[in-house]
């Protein structure tokens, strides 16, 4: 997993994170950020947090939420 700032780009391994879980997370986080998904060798999620939202915390919570969905 890699997080790059400005804007935040999260790289997630498709062997562990499904597209469905990522799309659901994007939908559920829409109130705090806008996101975009692209797939190359890994899923690339570009996140633009809304005003007042901590970038690092948002990125980490995003990944945690997505991982939580994988267990369901």
């Amino acid at each position: 997993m890699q997080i790059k700032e400005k804007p935040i780009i999260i790289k997630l391994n498709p062997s562990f994170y499904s597209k469905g879980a990522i799309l659901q997370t994007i939908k559920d986080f829409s109130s705090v950020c806008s996101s975009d998904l692209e797939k190359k060798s890994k899923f690339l999620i570009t996140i633009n947090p809304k005003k007042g939202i901590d970038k690092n915390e948002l990125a980490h919570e995003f990944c945690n939420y997505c991982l939580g969905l994988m267990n369901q």
Partner: protein
Amino acid sequence: MEDLNNLGNLKINKAENYIFFSVNPSIFSLEVVYSAAYIMIDKAYIFLDGNPKRSIDIEIRAKKENQDLKRLALEFNNELINYANYKQQNKENKEIREMILQRALQTNLITPEYTEGNIKDPKNIKEAWSEDKRPKKTKNANKRKTNNNQA
């Protein structure tokens, strides 16, 4: 990176405040890793990477400052063992569980003698009561009532 245990698979990076370790998927399956991670996501940030067939790489980052990373990593390991054991027990008890469930469901089957058309109702209990069906009062009943009131 500093080794946390003698197995050498737990490494701590104090500068960046995270722990990294690898799990053998032949010992702890991906399903078990997901279950353990699910328990830990309240306490820390968990990331998965690697190859689910060869080696599952896990990174644990603290949510709060001064959080005990070693403790988190060791807790995660314990949860892995916990869920691996649960999965094993589940597998071994599957047949017994299904048998008990089947037995329980069979005792709730309705037999033909108790179906709607076959129930006998000599006193007409099934039929709903209404004012029309109130029994008419007889003259003797009225006399008895007045005698009781006087007494």
